[in-house]
């Protein structure tokens, strides 16, 4: 009987490996899911004197997209966001993160802006409050101001269809 032990160990190991294959090791759950979106009041890029605060979007399902002009991946994500904005599926608010060189306004003027508003987080403090690990990151915030999902990295077609569409549908009901 004991000669079967190595095989049994291997079968158990293979089972774990099989389950592991279907998971993404890079996906780290955010502790902010299910919690109210941290409050902030920041100036809006390109509109002197205006400010944005998450409370302004109460009653709406919206996306908070953390990006920066210096971020290469954000540039790749930009056309996707433009499509979403043109289709008018969901309001997207930008969080311009650590834009020390003040390039966001000119960049959006040149490429077009997918955002209903862009909050200017020069110090990066608001990003830290949201647990931003890098740009781009996108938060889905529901009608009551609760963070329901966080997507790390570029929103591509697949991520949009599998992660965002079902959730937005559910939240908008």
């Amino acid at each position, binding site marked *: 009987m004991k*000669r*079967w032990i*190595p*095989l049994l160990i*291997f*079968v158990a*190991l*293979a089972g*774990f*490996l*099989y*389950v*592991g*294959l*279907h*998971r*993404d*090791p*890079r996906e*780290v*759950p955010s502790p902010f899911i299910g919690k109210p979106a941290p409050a902030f009041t920041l100036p809006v890029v390109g509109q002197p004197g205006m400010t944005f605060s998450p409370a302004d979007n109460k009653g709406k399902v919206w996306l908070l997209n953390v990006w920066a002009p210096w971020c*290469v991946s954000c540039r790749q994500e930009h056309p996707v966001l433009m499509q979403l904005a043109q289709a008018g599926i969901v309001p997207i608010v930008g969080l311009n993160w650590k834009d020390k060189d003040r390039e966001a306004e000119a960049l959006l003027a040149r490429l077009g802006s997918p955002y209903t508003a862009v909050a200017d987080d020069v110090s990066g403090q608001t990003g830290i409050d949201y647990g931003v690990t890098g740009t781009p990151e996108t938060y889905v915030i529901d009608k009551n101001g609760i963070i329901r999902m966080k997507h790390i990295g570029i929103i591509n077609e697949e991520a949009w269809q599998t992660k965002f569409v079902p959730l937005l549908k559910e939240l908008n009901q």
Partner: protein
Amino acid sequence: MIPEIGHFALILALLLALVQGIPPLIGAHRGNATLMAVARPAAQGQFLFVAIAYGCLAYSFLVNDFSVANVARNSFSQLPPVYRFAASWGSHEGSILLWALILALWTTAVTIWSRHLPEDMSARVIGVMGLVSFGFLLFILVASNPFVRLSPAPMDGSDLNPLLQDPGMVFHPPMLYMGYVGFSVAFAFAIAALLSGKMDVAWARWSRPWTAVAWVFLSIGITGGSWWAYNELGWGGWWFWDPTENASFMPWLAGTALLHSLVATEKRGAFKNWTVLLAILAFSMSLVGTFLVRSGVLSSVHAFATDPTRGIFMLAFLGVVIGGSLALFAFRAAKMPTGGSFTWFSRESLLLANNVVLVAALGAVLLGTLYPLFMDALGMGKISVGPPYFNSVFVPLITPLLFLMGVGPLARWKQASLPAMAKQLRVALAIAATTGVLVSLASGSFKPMVGFGVALAVWIVVTIYLGFAQRLKYIGGPTLPALLKIPRGFWGMQMAHLGLAWVVAGITLVSGLETERNVKMNIGDTTHLAGYDFTFQGVSPHEGPNYRAASGNVEVAAGGKQLFVLHPQKRIYNASGMPMTEAAIDYGFTRDVYVALGDELDNGAWTVRVFHKPFINWLWIGGLFLALGGVLAASDRRYRIALRAAEAPAVAPQGAQA
């Protein structure tokens, strides 16, 4: 055209692998010599076609054929030719093809140097290797084809990962794969023995040199990888317990256990089942390691794309090869008689202890590597397991092994005398303990771990001396001729043990005594570390073939005397825009001085990291001795005689006895 030829050659190789696998195994089972005779030519043909395929891939890289998707993703027109060639194994597809090529190479080596084996044995060994090869080639053709074209072809490639643009990339992966894949030979011998039901001592003798050579390559590969990480990553570290490193370390541990267990099986007929199991384990660890690295189940600094189809295919392949072998083991192992008896204190029992420790250490590394995956699979959250776990588990596990290493080679087979050995080893223990205390006192503040590590290393060295003394006494006569009479196997063992002692001393000294500083330096600033003065003289621009760099000028002086200037670089690679740190190192036998640039600050100031690494090179010197020991052991006279005796009748009938 060339990539299509490569693709076609792969298909032919796949078919030949099947021919190499099935008829010889049937032939060996039925005693049909004609079918068995298919094995050698089929294996050699398979090697030829895999080599053609690999040549086509390498050619596509060298001529910058960006219509091949793999080339476009992993190469760049400005990349120097040697890295273009190395880029052929820098990708997932290319590295698996390299795997298959090296497997075919080992198989061909077996076809050449197995003439002294009984025909059914060699047919089985080559057949088993053919089936493994078939699995790999099928995987390449179905899920990982390196010859897929892109249309339209991009103007230029997206460059080889800058981390991989290092001389290490040229030598490290082939070495590592030679080792990994080389365990397939011992595996095939073990399966052949299980299939035939003949678990005689000869089986162990035949596998020993093959195992030793594979182990040598793996040792060199791991040592080289560590050296590469130290030079390239710019953190001054040399081992990170990263999943990919563990993937190469686990087969090494299993292979080391196998080498020792084979000795007991060959010389005393002991642990036959256990040795077979270790042979299966060593190659299984190679396969599991490849799976872990290539399937993306674990995240690691060695980033590879995740592709579930590939993962499923590889897992199924693992299931067939490992599961099948273990099932065969379960059915057949029971039938085999066990070897001669021995007492609790003997060479056999000490070798068994060696095996238990090595396998336990392997289990600890495997557990640590897979623990995040277990937790995630069981829904218990995401965690990561880092160096603190590995250091606190692995070090205490391996320490008794280092102690036993001093005792084992001196002990007799069957029954050793504990009082006699205790008397013999008393002096060694005293010398080791004294040196340990002295070193830990001399190292400034009292560092017990440094002393303990050095004491273990000295213990091993003194017992090596005792081992030679014992041998010389046994042979008798004047020392020098007697030394030459000592077989190479003994020299090899002692050389490898010496290498390990050297590695242990290096690890302990560098871990205990290294110092580093991370400082902001304006132009002209000086910082001090371990008696050296580092003066930062700013950076100058530098143009590389495919990157731009800021090259720092750091003058190093000691005691007011200028010693040398180091030029650490911060590079930006043109194609990917990726920044890379290129450390500058002044190497020395007793210390390295290591400087790396951090970030650029205002007014030409930079953050600069300086390290003083005492005795770090002992790690790599020790690693080379370890490998050299393996070479000596594999070239022992017994194996050469066996080969010559088998070949002689065919080549030169008269010269056989000379």
